């Protein structure tokens, strides 16, 4: 069975005044129907740009310089803006981080929902309103009829994010790209959203890419993980595989950095140094300068290898002494 989405060797570069920034550098992954892929990385790792690249929404000075994005048998990179527009919102939809910013503050919710429907389907205004109302109900918004007439600022943060999710679900998309959708929310509200997203994906068999910096959220939600560092994928695999047996030193460091009940009273296993500037990455492996096991070999760029079945790691010295 072909994957819903298959990204092959994607390169997105920003041509800034200060120099070229390879925000996404040779990224490849697949998402299957009904599966949730967690795309994990710290700020500046290129995870958001990856999402925008799939949607064809990379703004100048950035552009996709290389690679293929296969979706439903078509290469999205090659599609015209007009054909891309028919995919966006209909077959691939998105949820962004800050629900305060993603809904237009001066347009009513019904306007914003109905326009999304009419952009892709011919239907009467009444039918569209009906669909919008049902979608609000589906994501657990009480009294959707009244809420349709409200403006975004009349909703709480959690409710706004629900509206955004309702809009994303309007056309029953094949793929949802969710970019840190719960980061701005409180724990109890985050749990509600995660619960609903999970249920909706399972019901409708939608594939999803969940972009986040938070390993814990991915642990609870996703099936597979891709870890990004400085624009490159450094490790891929199933959630259990990667979190229980991380191969890349960066992934190991990242997991060790998360405070939890096991680390109580002990120093965290921190990664030294800072995230390098994307304008002056170290030659070869970008993680080299912060890595404990780096040696001369790392001055060359490592390729992704699969030392274990179903796993991928971009490292000359993957951590192998704990194979399960």
């Amino acid at each position: 069975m072909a994957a819903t989405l298959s990204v092959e060797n994607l390169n997105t570069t920003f041509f800034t005044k200060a120099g070229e920034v390879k925000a996404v550098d040779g990224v490849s992954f697949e998402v299957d129907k009904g599966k949730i892929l967690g795309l994990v990385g710290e700020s500046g790792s290129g995870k958001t740009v990856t999402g925008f690249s799939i949607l064809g929404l990379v703004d100048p000075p950035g552009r996709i310089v290389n690679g293929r994005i296969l979706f439903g048998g078509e290469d999205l990179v090659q599609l015209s803006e007009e054909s891309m527009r028919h995919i966006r919102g209909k077959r691939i939809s998105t949820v962004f981080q800050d629900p305060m910013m993603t809904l237009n503050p001066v347009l009513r919710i019904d306007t914003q929902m109905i326009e999304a429907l009419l952009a892709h389907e011919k239907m009467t205004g009444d039918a569209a309103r009906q669909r919008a109302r049902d979608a609000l109900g589906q994501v657990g918004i009480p009294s959707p009829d009244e809420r349709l007439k409200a403006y975004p600022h009349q909703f709480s943060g959690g409710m706004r994010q629900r509206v955004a999710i309702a809009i994303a679900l309007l056309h029953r998309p094949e793929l949802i790209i969710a970019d840190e959708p719960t980061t701005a929310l409180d724990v109890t509200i985050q749990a509600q959203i995660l619960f609903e997203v999970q249920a909706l994906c399972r019901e409708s068999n939608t594939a999803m890419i969940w972009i986040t910096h938070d390993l814990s959220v991915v642990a609870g939600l996703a099936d597979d993980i891709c870890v990004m560092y400085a624009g490159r994928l450094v490790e891929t695999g199933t959630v259990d595989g990667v979190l229980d047996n991380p191969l890349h030193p960066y992934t190991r460091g990242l997991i060790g950095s998360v405070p939890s009940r096991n680390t109580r009273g002990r120093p965290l296993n921190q990664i030294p140094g800072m995230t390098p500037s994307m304008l002056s990455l170290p030659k070869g492996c970008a993680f080299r300068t912060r890595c404990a096991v780096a040696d001369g070999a790392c001055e060359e760029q490592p390729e992704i290898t699969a030392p274990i079945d179903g796993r991928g790691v971009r490292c000359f010295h993957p951590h192998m002494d704990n194979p399960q």
Partner: protein
Amino acid sequence: MTEPNAPLVRLQNITKRFVKSLDLTTKLINLVGGNYREEVVQAVDDVSFTIGEGEVVGLVGESGCGKSTIGRMVAGILEPTAGAIQYRGEDLLSLPKAKRRSVSLKSQMIFQDPFASLNPRMRVRDIIGEAPVAHKIVSSDELDDYLDEVMNLCGLEPGFKRRYAHQFSGGQRQRIGIARALAVKPDFLICDEAVAALDVSIQAQILNLFMDLRKELGLTYLLISHDLGVVEHLSDRVVIMYLGRLVEVATAEDLFRDPNHPYTKALLEEVPRIDNRRRNFAPVKGEIPSPIDPPSGCYFHPRCPHATERCKTEAPVLKEIGPGRLSACHLNDATG
């Protein structure tokens, strides 16, 4: 965990109200029969707890629960509307001005936003060195050596003294903020979401720095955070807040092993954990109510799975339910 012998800071019935008072027009309208009332936000409602010498107390709650307001009152940036704050047994608010200044210097705050918390027009040496010189902790001649010492302590390269804040990354900026606080030789650090804005790997560095400083300098911490992982990692005791009120106080061990209050339980249930895979999220229902218009009785009752009639009318008081454990829930009365 033994009950700390000497409390460093004691909060007694602290209340903070923010009032948006009526303007002339609304008063005039009220005169002719209008019914406009002042908008009152009870940010902190009758909160009491202590922080022992050398202890790390975690203050946990969701947005709008008043945890930052408490931090700012303890740090002396805000004044409580009612109640008393004692520092080593001295009532901070009734001290004479000069004395109060020197006492409140002993409590320093680490802020959330590493960008907004450093003055962009000052060099690192002034950011860190201004206060110690102003308060005559060091003379300006000795300042350089002193700065080297403080900066080394915080993992900052002393050679960077002449730089401006914009030349540093988020993690380094946070270290500068910590150095600024430590430079006035405080006993007590209030960390208000001090790692929330940082990347995970940098966050770990700063958390380790906090632990090392505690060992090195015998500091006491009030750790304000929404992140239960961080709180569990560092705290000795934990205080849970909901909508301006205390909900539960317990040692970290007790609390995370056996939470008492339904809200605490819900929080612990729902915090995502790295060792918790593909779980079924079972969230608590409802929204966080607005502090302008809180529910009656127990503030948590509209969302509580165990709420009874009593919870709707009567606000539960914080009661001792075990050694060093307090909880504000009517359920504890029923069970024993």
